Structure formats: structure tokens, C-alpha cells
């Protein structure tokens, strides 16, 4: 049985349908990345799977007694709240000093227990969030753009850490991202999202799918630049097909 699955999930904000017809399943031990342009509903999908955002249709199923760790996209510890790293790790479930230390060592941050959360760097903060998520001994880790605000080396190091965690604990990993090349290397399965699931499969399959190129062929840098010539949707070139063409060939 899948750890976490969605059947025909839909979410509306006001009148607008943000997500529709989403069905997916996360199996034990796999790394799944949800990829999509800004406004494609990536974060909303994660939040719907977590039960933060109400569904307008469909359902989410969790394996019985599922242990879930969540690393939110951004969390700002207000300066008005004093909060040491050690204290933060004990929220909401209290953990022993030994457990806290072990979790921090695992994410490569020894000796920060006494530091204030507000004084950590971006990379350190993300690692502490990951350490906290690991303390519940999760069967599935859910990460929402965990490397936002990190520089390139920091980002690469963070994804290496995620893979290590998977290797050590066997936890499944579901994350949202838009930094494509790193994701491609680190995922077992990629789900392309733009309000609905455009395509999904192994990174190799997805990167060759026309739906994927339609979504990411424009304005992306790095690894995907080469796709731009093959599948050009830009306004400048005045192709016959409309700007919304990529939505038409999206369903399978």
C-alpha cells in the first residue's frame, strides 16, 4: 500500500480552480519531485496533501499511522520570540537531548543547540528544519522548496543530504522544486504540474516529454536551455499555436 495518495484531488481558492484532477501515490523509499512553474500550484498541492488546505473535490489517503516529517517553504521565527535551536527541536513533541544532538549531527550541524533560531544563516536554518522533521522518525518527508534562498553549493549540499537521509532511514521523500537540473539528478520520479499533472515518470522520460518542454522550454536557464530551440512558445516568434497550446496537449 502507498504511504500517501491522492485521488482526483481538486482545490479552489475563491472561484478559481488552482488544482484539478490530481491523482498520485507515493511509495516507500522513493524520491518524488513535483516540478512546475510559478503559480502552478506546487506548494498548494503539498499543503492539500498535508491537510492544511481544504479540498474542493477528491480525497487524500494516508497509510495507517503514517509518520510524516514536514519542512515548510519558509518559516520566520519572529524576533519577538526567543527560541534556541534545542527548544525548537522539541516542538511540538518533546525529545531528549541525545536525540536532538543526534539529529543535528545527522544534518551536519553539530554544536548549534544553544544558538538562537533567528541568528542562523539560511542554510543552517533549513538544516535545523530538516533535523526537526527527522526527529519524528518519518516514513515520508515532505519538503516545500527546501533550498530557496541558498546559493548553488548550499543547494547541492542540501540535496546530497536528502539522498543520504533516504539511504540511511529509507524514508520516502516528496519535494517541490523549480531548480531543474539538481532535481533531475536526485529524483526517482518527477511529476510535472501546472494546475493538473502534465506528465510524470523518471527524470529521463519526463525531460523528453513534450508537455515538460512546453512548460519549461521557456525562460529557464541551465540544463534546459537546449530545449528552447526545439519547442518554442515565445511571443516573439509568432508561431501559429496560441499561448495556451501547451495546456491542450497536457492530458494523457
Amino acid at each position, binding site marked *: 500500500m502507498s504511504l500517501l495518495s491522492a485521488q482526483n484531488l481538486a482545490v479552489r481558492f475563491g472561484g478559481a480552480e488552482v488544482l484539478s484532477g490530481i491523482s498520485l501515490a507515493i511509495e516507500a523509499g522513493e524520491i518524488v519531485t513535483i516540478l512546475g512553474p510559478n503559480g502552478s500550484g506546487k506548494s498548494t498541492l503539498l*499543503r492539500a496533501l*498535508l*491537510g*492544511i488546505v481544504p479540498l474542493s473535490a477528491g480525497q487524500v489517503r494516508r497509510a495507517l499511522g503514517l509518520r*510524516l516529517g*514536514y519542512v*515548510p517553504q519558509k*518559516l520566520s*521565527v*519572529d524576533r*519577538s*520570540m*526567543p*527560541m*534556541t535551536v534545542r*527548544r*525548537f527541536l*522539541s*516542538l*511540538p*513533541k*518533546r525529545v531528549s537531548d541525545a536525540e536532538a544532538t543526534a539529529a543535528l549531527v545527522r544534518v551536519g550541524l553539530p554544536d548549534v543547540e*544553544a544558538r*538562537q533560531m533567528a541568528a542562523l544563516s539560511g542554510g543552517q536554518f533549513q538544516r535545523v528544519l530538516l533535523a526537526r522533521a527527522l526527529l519524528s522518525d518519518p516514513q515520508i518527508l*515532505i519538503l516545500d522548496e527546501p533550498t530557496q534562498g541558498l546559493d548553488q553549493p548550499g543547494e547541492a549540499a542540501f540535496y546530497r543530504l536528502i539522498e543520504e537521509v533516504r539511504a540511511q532511514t529509507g524514508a520516502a521523500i516528496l519535494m517541490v522544486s523549480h531548480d531543474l537540473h539538481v532535481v533531475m539528478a536526485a529524483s526517482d520520479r518527477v511529476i510535472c504540474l501546472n494546475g493538473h499533472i502534465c506528465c510524470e515518470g523518471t527524470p529521463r522520460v519526463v525531460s523528453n516529454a513534450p508537455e515538460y518542454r512546453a512548460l519549461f522550454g521557456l525562460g529557464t536557464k541551465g540544463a534546459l536551455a537546449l530545449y528552447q530551440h526545439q519547442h518554442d512558445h515565445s511571443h516573439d516568434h509568432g508561431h501559429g499555436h496560441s499561448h495556451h497550446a501547451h495546456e491542450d496537449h497536457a492530458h494523457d
Partner: protein
Amino acid sequence: MIDDFLIRAGLAGLGLAVATGPLGSFVVWRRMAYFGDATSHAAILGVALALALHLPIAAGTLIVALTMALTVSTLAAKGWAMDTTLGVLAHSALAFGLVAISYVPGVRADLSSYLFGDILAVTPMDLGFIWGGAVIVLGLLVWRWQALLTATLSEDLAHASGLNPDRERLVLTLALALVVAVALKIVGALLIAAMLIIPAAAARAVSRTPEAMAVIASVIGALACLAGLSLSLWQDTPAGPSIVSAAAICFAAAAIISAFRR
């Protein structure tokens, strides 16, 4: 030999500080200062209501404060612009309350004790009410402490941990209404919010964990109550402003101490 009324006044101040330390910390962390103002100003309307209907003052203030607190948190959940909404509600409640009280015969003389507090006139029954309320508030906060902290840091994180942030917000709303009813006699409606915010803000400067901040805020609140009580006794100053002035001096001292530490 210390007079009974002085002991009662001192105990009343301590009871209030026990509740305002931790609750005030949440008010600071969640930026609910104006929320506190709206709720406490509504207490004056509660006093008017109680006098008109011959209810106990505490019951009137509790009901109106609770209504106001629930209204405000419902509007906040619906996404109303909070500073304007709260500004309108806080000052309207105060204005309507003052107008309503003027219709109740024979109360004008007492009005200043509701606005500014009258800690030296605390009766044994008041004292029972103050400590009863304080213990309930403290119990609520201790019971929900871990969940409240998590929801205050991030509602998403709380959700993902299986907590319900709306329920935790309701806990704080209830606690706030109770504290307003409890504090009315001591600091008066105008300065209840100050009693929540100033000791907590002073404690922030010298704390490293949320728990330390809550406890230090209670200690500062208690010191401020005792200092204000003394001033009120010897100089015949109004109780609420005296207590809040003492708290403000503590805040300045804590700010200076923390500046020197850096």
C-alpha cells in the same frame, strides 16, 4: 502590623501577574497588542451592562470581553484589515461603554476606578475571582503550551503535526477575555493591554527561550504590581497608571541591560 487590605492588594497583583506573564508573551509573539486593547476596552461596556442589569461586574465584563474577543478573531480569520477593524472596535466599545455608564445613576464617581483600576479596594471576593481566573488561564496555557508555541511559530507546521491552529487561537481568545475580566479591578480597562505587553517585552530582552520569557514576564509583572501598589498607597496615585509606569521602568532597565550585554 500590615493591614488586610494591603495584603489583599498585594495578592491581587501577584494573581494578575501569574496570568499576564505567559499570556502577554503570546500577545507579543503573535502581535496581538491591538487585539488586547479592543478586548479590554470592551470591558467598560461590560461594566455598564452589569450595572444596568444588576449582574455582578465580573460577569458583565467577562461576557462582553468574550464576545469582543470572539468577534475580533472571527473577523481576523475572514481576512479583514486588522488594524482598522480593531481600531474601530476598540474605540467604539470604549465610547459606547462610557456613554452607557453615564445613564446608570450614581456611578460617575466610581468611573475612574473602572478606567484606572483600584487595587487598594480589592475585596476578599474580588481576590477569589482574580486567583480563580488566573489559575484557569495559567492552566489553559500550560495544558496547550507545546501546541500553542508550535501554532504561533507556523500554522503550517502545526497542521502537519496534526494540531489545529484554529483551536489554539480559540484557547488564547478565551484566556484573553478571562484576563481582562480579572485585571479590570487592578489596572483598569484602559491599561490592561499595557500590563500584558510591557512586562513581556521587558522579559524578551533578557530571555533565551519562550518559557524563560513567560516566567520573567510574570516576575516583572509582579514587581510592577507591588511597586505600583506602594506608589498608589503613599502618593494616592491611580493604581493602573502607577503599575504600568513601574512596568515601563522595568522595560527600560531590561533594554539597557541587554544593550550592555551585546
